[in-house]
């Protein structure tokens, strides 16, 4: 596509062309109207002048007969001033007047007509146009009074000129304006296109230029830049996640391999083999657990389970999951206190919320210290429900609270204990799927994990953007 072709194809230029046609048509119509009216007006004035002249001459004739008329016509003929006079006998002999070269039939009949004429005493040039009135007087005398119409013709000429010039001006200005605007737009668009191509080619740091004019292009550029920033963030998050996955899945895979190798090398008896195989299966199951948790987080974050939301009782879920863990807590010497005073109806996924509560309780039991107390409560307040799992353990330092909800983050204090590092990330993802949030607070002492979920069906927001880089950011945004 040539540069000119590109220019002519722009929307701006096409718009300019359309306006050009509209304005040109409009100016022609206006000038035609003006010229038509001016013509009519001038014609009326000419007629009035001729009529007044004739009335005056008729008066002369009535008072003084043909002699007086001849004298008056002669006197007026010499005045010039564009009025034409001619007085003839019925045979056509001229008695007085300032007109010559009239067509033969001009005086034959009474009435008004337009004629070419020549002025008496002037060298024969092209005849002038005139409007004349012929009057037959008693005695066969013919009186012609007329008016030169050159003025009228000149006015028509002026108007025709004006039409031509204004048309030319409209076309030239319109085309120039169109080209100017189109080029301006084209330059901005070309610059944007270049930048976008660069970004597609891999230069992810590229951003659209913002001119500071705060026009529509600036707004588009700002929105696009914000989108690019967001994409960058997500990509960084994705990279971090895949790095983590690679690391955290390689570690147990490696362990599994070592175990199998050791069994192959050292196992002597049937029992040795069986024991080794059992440990290998247990390791595999643990890895499958990690996979499942990851898939579940991904599913929750993509909002894929959103259409599976059904009416559930949050208090019942919290209560039944707590009940599931009650004997385990007792075995570990931890008092599991459950407080779910009344049903809390909400739209939710029972499995996911159940899993989330289970993860929180397991965390509390695993890291909440021994001989303590774990308190599970579910309360509805307005259009929010809070499921709180609070323990009396060491808690999580403020600095680590947001990080604790990321995938595969295992705080130093928990490194030595079993776990995939996905528990809180899953809870956070489940909360966001439901339009809620997970917040970690201080239980003074201990950790107080608060799962906030909206109660009303209408309170469910459209799918939130998946907060890949830092689940905590999503949680904050949802608050």
């Amino acid at each position, binding site marked *: 596509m040539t540069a000119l072709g590109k220019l002519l194809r722009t929307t701006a230029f096409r718009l300019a062309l359309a306006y050009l046609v509209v304005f040109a048509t409009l100016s022609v119509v206006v000038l035609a109207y003006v010229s038509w009216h001016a013509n009519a007006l001038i014609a009326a004035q000419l007629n009035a002048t001729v009529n007044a002249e004739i009335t005056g001459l008729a008066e002369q004739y009535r008072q003084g007969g043909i002699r007086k008329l001849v004298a008056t016509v002669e006197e007026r003929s010499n005045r010039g001033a564009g009025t034409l006079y001619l007085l003839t006998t019925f045979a056509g002999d001229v008695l007085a007047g300032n007109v010559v070269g009239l067509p033969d039939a001009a005086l034959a009949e009474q009435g008004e007509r337009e004629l070419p004429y020549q002025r008496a005493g002037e060298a024969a040039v092209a005849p002038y146009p005139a409007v004349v009135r012929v009057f037959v007087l008693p005695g066969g005398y013919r009186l012609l009074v007329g008016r030169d119409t050159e003025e009228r013709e000149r006015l028509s000429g002026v108007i025709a000129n004006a039409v031509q010039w204004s048309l030319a001006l409209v076309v030239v200005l319109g085309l120039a304006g169109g080209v100017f605007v189109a080029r301006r737009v084209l330059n901005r668009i070309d610059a944007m296109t270049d930048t976008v191509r660069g970004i597609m080619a891999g230069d992810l740091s590229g951003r659209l230029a913002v001119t500071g004019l705060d026009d529509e292009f600036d707004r588009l550029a700002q929105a696009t830049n914000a989108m690019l920033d967001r994409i960058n963030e997500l990509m960084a998050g994705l990279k971090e996640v895949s790095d983590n996955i690679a690391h955290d899945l390689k570690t147990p895979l490696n362990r599994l391999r070592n175990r199998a190798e050791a069994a192959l090398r050292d196992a002597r008896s049937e029992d040795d083999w069986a024991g080794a195989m059992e440990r290998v*299966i247990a390791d595999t199951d643990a890895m499958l657990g990690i996979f499942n948790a990851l898939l579940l987080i991904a599913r929750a974050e993509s909002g*894929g389970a959103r259409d599976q939301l059904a009416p559930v009782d949050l208090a019942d879920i919290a209560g*039944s999951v707590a009940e*599931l*863990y009650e*004997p385990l807590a007792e075995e570990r010497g931890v008092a599991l206190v459950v407080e779910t005073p009344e049903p809390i109806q909400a739209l939710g996924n029972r499995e996911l919320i159940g899993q989330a509560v289970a993860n929180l309780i*397991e965390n509390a039991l695993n890291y909440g210290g021994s001989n303590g107390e774990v308190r599970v409560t579910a309360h509805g307040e307005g259009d929010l429900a809070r499921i709180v799992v609070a323990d009396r353990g060491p808690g999580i330092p403020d600095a680590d609270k947001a990080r604790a909800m990321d995938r595969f983050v295992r705080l130093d204090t928990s490194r030595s204990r079993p776990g995939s590092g996905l528990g809180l990330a899953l809870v956070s993802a489940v909360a966001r799927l439901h339009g809620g949030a997970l917040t970690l607070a201080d239980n003074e002492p201990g950790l107080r994990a608060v799962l906030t979920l909206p109660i009303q069906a209408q309170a469910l927001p459209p799918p939130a953007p998946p907060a890949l880089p830092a689940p905590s950011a999503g949680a904050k945004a949802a608050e």
Partner: protein
Amino acid sequence: MTTAMKLLIVEDDREAAAYVVKALTEAGHVADHAADGLDGYALASASNYDVLVVDRMLPKLDGLSLIGRLRAEGATTPVLILSALGQVDDRVDGLRAGGDDYLTKPYAFAELLARVEALARRGAAGAGDTVYRVGDLEIDRLSHTVTRAGQEIVLQPREFRLLEYLMRNAGQVVTRTMLLENVWDYHFDPQTNVIDVHVSRLRSKIDKGFDKPLLHTVRGAGYVIRDGAR
């Protein structure tokens, strides 16, 4: 103790299918194998199986459509769906399509066996009976009472449901996930051994003080309640 079942495995992974067929045969059952949906449909309509094990993703005719066709023809054979898809929402689709149980891949063979046996016996094992008996242990589902050798045993509501489920499947191995699904109605995977603690609590109530234990742990699989060792 369990009667031999006739099973159909519809699974396109031949190696996995061969392993399952072999293991089922060793467990005393008869298993046929179909490698795609159309073959599976032909076999299932041609002969009477006790349970169908159908993979969700199959060549030629996918698992859910296969089940849909059989159900449309009025077949009531219990179906266990196998799937590599996620657990939470796909399970709902599977059960809605006419499946009776759902198992996510990869699975332990013990889990598959326990579920297939439970499905096969579901119609037979008098689910409508009001009283289940195993040895001298008796559970009355109407009056919610449990007695052993005439002695009343007081159970918590959840312990009662746990025992009820075990006794409905008396002689059958039930896995931990089956217990979690049927007694608590959750399908997720607890990290810790919560179910074991519940079972050992129940065991201490029904077996403690009696000579013969009835609630047995089956290593690598789950639990079984039965009178006398096999």
